[in-house]
């Protein structure tokens, strides 16, 4: 995989030759402005539905492996 990544990077680095001193970046092709909606309350997804795909759960909670260990 290392050799493949090196070859891909080599191909990508050809962009260095392109003169872009006078152009701005394009993040999105559509002229996005902030999209706002009314702040209307609606029913959230039921807890059981939200948890149905959880690999590990504990009652009504997601079970997460140890995040903080002592001394870390």
């Amino acid at each position, binding site marked *: 995989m290392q050799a*493949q990544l090196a070859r891909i990077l080599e191909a*990508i680095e050809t*962009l260095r030759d392109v003169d872009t001193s006078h152009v701005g*970046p394009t*993040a999105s092709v559509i002229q996005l402005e902030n999209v706002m909606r009314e702040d209307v309350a609606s029913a959230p997804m039921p807890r*059981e*539905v*939200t948890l149905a795909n959880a690999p590990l759960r504990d009652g009504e909670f997601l079970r997460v492996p*140890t995040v903080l260990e002592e001394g870390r």
Partner: protein
Amino acid sequence: MSAPLLVDRSITEAAAALAAGETSALELTDACLARIERDASRLNTFLALDPDGARATADAADLALARGEGANRPLLGIPYALKDIFVTRALDADGNDLSGGLATTAGSRILEGYRSPYPSAAQERLEAAGAILLGKTNCDEFAMGSSNENSAYGPVRNPWDESAVPGGSSGGSSAAVAGGQAFFALGTDTGGSIRQPASLTGTVGLKPTYGRVSRFGMIAFASSLDQAGPLTRSVRDAALVLGAIAGHDPRDSTSVETPVPDYAAALTGDVRGLRLGVPREYFVAGMEPGVEAAVRAALLLMRELGAEMVDVSLPSTDRGLATYYIIAPAEASANLARFDGVRYGLSAGADELWENYTHTRGSGFGPEVKRRIMLGTYALSAGYYDAYYVKAQQVRTLIKAEFDEVLGTVEAILAPTSPNVAFPIGAKVDDPLAMYLNDACTLPVNIAGLPGISVPCGLSEGKPVGLQVIGRAFDESTVLRVADAYERAAGFADLRAPTARA
């Protein structure tokens, strides 16, 4: 060449047979299911099927057809398939498995058995249109690939030559449509993933303008490039499906509030006086001679039909690949961070969080997905951000400006879809760059966000070749009109794969 069987014909022809009472939605569904039963395990086209649900939907469609509702609902009673990148509702309101609910995997082990609590916008809209969902089609993992060989569930075989790839990443969708297993299928196209497989399987594949179709419920790969669209057996069919799925959706803030025209009404068959550009940079070195010959013949035919052919130049075309392989992996690396082994999907079950991340992602993602996450993370990292990511976005500006300029003088652009026909399974798996070159003619269109279609333009070495028509933003009507006029005149509309037999 004998006429194809009904199961291998177009939506338009099947709908006419439904309207005339010559067949029923249930018969069409059973015909697709019989073809699936015969061929799907060999071609590996489907990852999930719902035959009972499809038959129940067909019964309902037949009742609606009997009430005369088919007149302005062209997809009523038509069986179709969804690429397994669109989520399909598989849970009820209590979190229990819905009977017949289809799992969604995105072709990845990390989502094996994932049951979505909600449907994609595409599924909702096609359900409202009365189309019949048969199942979910195989695809490259997270839509990353050009051959369908990156699926965690095995490669798909091309109905034209079962030792060859069907293209990708919507390879299951293209093979299902080419093989008479569904009248149409939805795919997604980030760098060519609808058009290239359409080209390699002799089907029609339409990538709409970015923002034309809601991406809600489409598992994200590269959010500024992804777009959903149909794979069909005719240009008219593509117009009908686009009409059903296009339009603004408040749940996708990048879907645009532009009115949806009657796309089928644009198919006049007349291209006289239309100015069509032929970019010289798209006839690239390394293009197969048979492909070039088929595409050049198509250009001649368009001239005979009265279009004015104009030589044009898109000088930054050869920068498309490098630009794409910075922007798409960068966006993918961010999008795929959500697969953390905690909330859903595969979990390695390690005791410690960091270990759980690395083991889950290390065993859940395939090599191409890992390659792109690493490339993208690298391109976005401090110290390289300007040199890679910002640079690619600047070149994106140049590529888009060149298209805008050319499309200011011509109404559409004609080009090859893929530089080659379907290649043998395994031929390019060890050389990612060679694989990426498959999309050299399609990915600039995504970078610029424009609509593009691939329409069959003959055979080379017995395998299909595609002609690409690229248009102005939100002008799918002209793209479809040009492709339809070509399809009518060229006489390839009834070409079918060897699987199209009783």
